[in-house]
């Protein structure tokens, strides 16, 4: 049996994830759905427990010791998260519930205060619904036009008509990594073209931040969104990063406590950023948990995470091709260097739902469906795919278990 090269071997990390010790239907749990949500290392679980056990208090309020500890922990997490994505200032990172809420914040605040009837927003065919529907909602309200960068048969963006699409556009919204195809998008040239056309650039990093080194400045983003739970952190916490001057010019999103410096009978004065956009008591434990996830990923090293996933993806693609030949079709780029560790596939004419049902009985967790990317699924010409996705805690044995389970599915349905 071939294995991933030793230099990228992170197998020892498995022990850091207590859930991977459980069994499912009597089999070893093989978790291959990290593109939906990642498992959590003990360090993240313990960081959140410690907050609740030792210093649970509201932030930015009390003058007592615990409140100061909670505030320092949350703001410390913000600073480390900012550094992790290459932001120059912590105040440029707004805590949201997830990437979806972050896009909605941009659409609601920047979009509604900036876009006028006839303005264009350019998106791509491989966006997640999170970076489509908020703009559809704004289009219905404001009469803006949505234009689309198409996807080629190889699963990469076809930018041949980019200049025409960007002509008169106010925003380019693009994913840094497709959650269906795994395609890694080279954002920088797209951002340069958008900026030359006078458009801002919103990058959806929900799939890329967990798996690739991230530098929001180098990629030329103006807005950058991601979710905590896909990068070993908890659910309920995500981030909008944007350049400070953009955030300062934008009106608040949600109104309420924490986001004001003064409230009078005739109006209010908002806080400075980032708190202007963080109304109400925030997800304190979750922010601390995300900070712990960032610490964990930095201790592994994002270059090592990437090297591990390239090796594992390359192994899986080769092994699956060897064992299933033409019967298994993997969507997206064939080169592991051009893609993340997301493998969407079709096996013969077996429906993705039936595949995932059989895999479940074998202890193998994959996603089946349209992956919240229905426009892309229509272009691929499939109603649904099964999707296996790898992360730091997966290894060649997990890929082999996937293949073994797929053989069971084939026997069952043919």
């Amino acid at each position, binding site marked *: 049996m071939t294995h991933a090269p030793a230099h990228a071997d992170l197998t020892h990390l498995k022990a850091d994830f207590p859930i991977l010790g459980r069994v499912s239907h009597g089999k070893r749990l093989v978790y291959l759905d990290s593109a939906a949500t990642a498992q959590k290392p003990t360090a993240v679980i313990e960081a959140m427990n410690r907050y609740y056990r030792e210093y649970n208090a509201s932030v930015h309020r009390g003058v007592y010791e615990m409140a100061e500890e909670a505030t320092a922990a949350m703001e410390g997490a913000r600073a480390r998260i900012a550094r992790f994505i290459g932001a120059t200032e912590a105040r440029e990172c707004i805590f949201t519930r997830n990437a979806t809420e972050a896009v909605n914040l941009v659409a609601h605040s920047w979009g509604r205060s900036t876009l006028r009837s006839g303005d264009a927003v350019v998106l791509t065919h491989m966006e997640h619904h999170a970076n489509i529907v908020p703009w559809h909602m704004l289009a219905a309200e404001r009469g803006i036009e949505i234009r689309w960068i198409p996807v080629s048969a190889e699963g990469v963006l076809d930018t041949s008509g980019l200049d025409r699409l960007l002509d008169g556009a106010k925003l380019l919204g693009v994913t840094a990594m497709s959650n269906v195809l795994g395609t890694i998008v080279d954002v920088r040239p797209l951002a340069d073209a958008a900026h030359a056309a006078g458009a801002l650039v919103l990058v959806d990093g929900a799939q890329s931040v967990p798996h690739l080194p991230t530098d929001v400045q180098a990629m030329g983003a103006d807005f950058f969104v991601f979710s905590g739970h896909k990068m070993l952190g908890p659910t309920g916490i995500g981030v909008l990063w944007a350049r400070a001057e953009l955030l300062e010019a934008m009106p608040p999103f949600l109104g309420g406590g924490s986001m004001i410096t003064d409230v009078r009978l005739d109006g209010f004065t908002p806080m400075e950023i980032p708190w202007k956009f963080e109304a109400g008591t925030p997800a304190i434990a979750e922010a601390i948990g995300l900070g712990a996830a960032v610490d964990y990923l930095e201790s592994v090293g994002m270059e090592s995470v990437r090297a591990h996933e390239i090796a594992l993806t390359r192994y899986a693609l080769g092994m699956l091709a060897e064992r299933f030949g033409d019967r298994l079709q993997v969507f997206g780029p064939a080169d592991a260097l051009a893609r993340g560790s997301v493998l969407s596939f079709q096996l013969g004419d077996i429906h993705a*739902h039936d595949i995932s049902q059989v895999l479940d009985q074998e202890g193998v967790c994959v996603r089946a469906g349209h992956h919240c990317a229905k426009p892309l699924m229509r272009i691929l010409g499939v109603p649904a795919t099964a999707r296996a996705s790898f992360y730091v805690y997966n290894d060649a044995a997990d890929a082999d278990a996937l293949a073994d389970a797929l053989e069971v599915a084939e026997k069952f349905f043919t």
Partner: protein
Amino acid sequence: MSGLEDLYREIILDHYRAPRNRGELPVPPANKTEGFNPLCGDEVVLYVELDDDGAVRDIRTSGHGCSISQASTSMMSAAIKGKSRSDVDKTIRAFKALMSIHEARLLPDGSPGDSDGDDESADDVNLGDLEALQGVVKFPVRIKCATLAWHTLQQALAP
């Protein structure tokens, strides 16, 4: 019996591999109705031609989806073809009872509970092959796959 074989009974796989009444009918006299399951992308298309008295003179099906949705469509078409309207209504009720009663009354050990018998019209219908689909109730997320064809049929029969 493993859970999988409970879900994928041989008769279900037979209907999936060799679906009955596959095809289209001219519209009119038939009507065409489409049903979608947005979660998994199942699609059921029914062509139903009714007699003047509402009996199902002919039915054809198309669409695509998982084995459960497509087998259920095939079995449904075979079960109602040529039936009077009242027999069709009884079959629909009986099938929905098979799905929903068991869904609502799963015992702690995971086995289906007894029908409470308040739906008399459902009790005296022999569902035949369709009984094979009762294994689906142990897999709650798949129930909507099994019921899609039936919801679509109800749309087709709506006045």
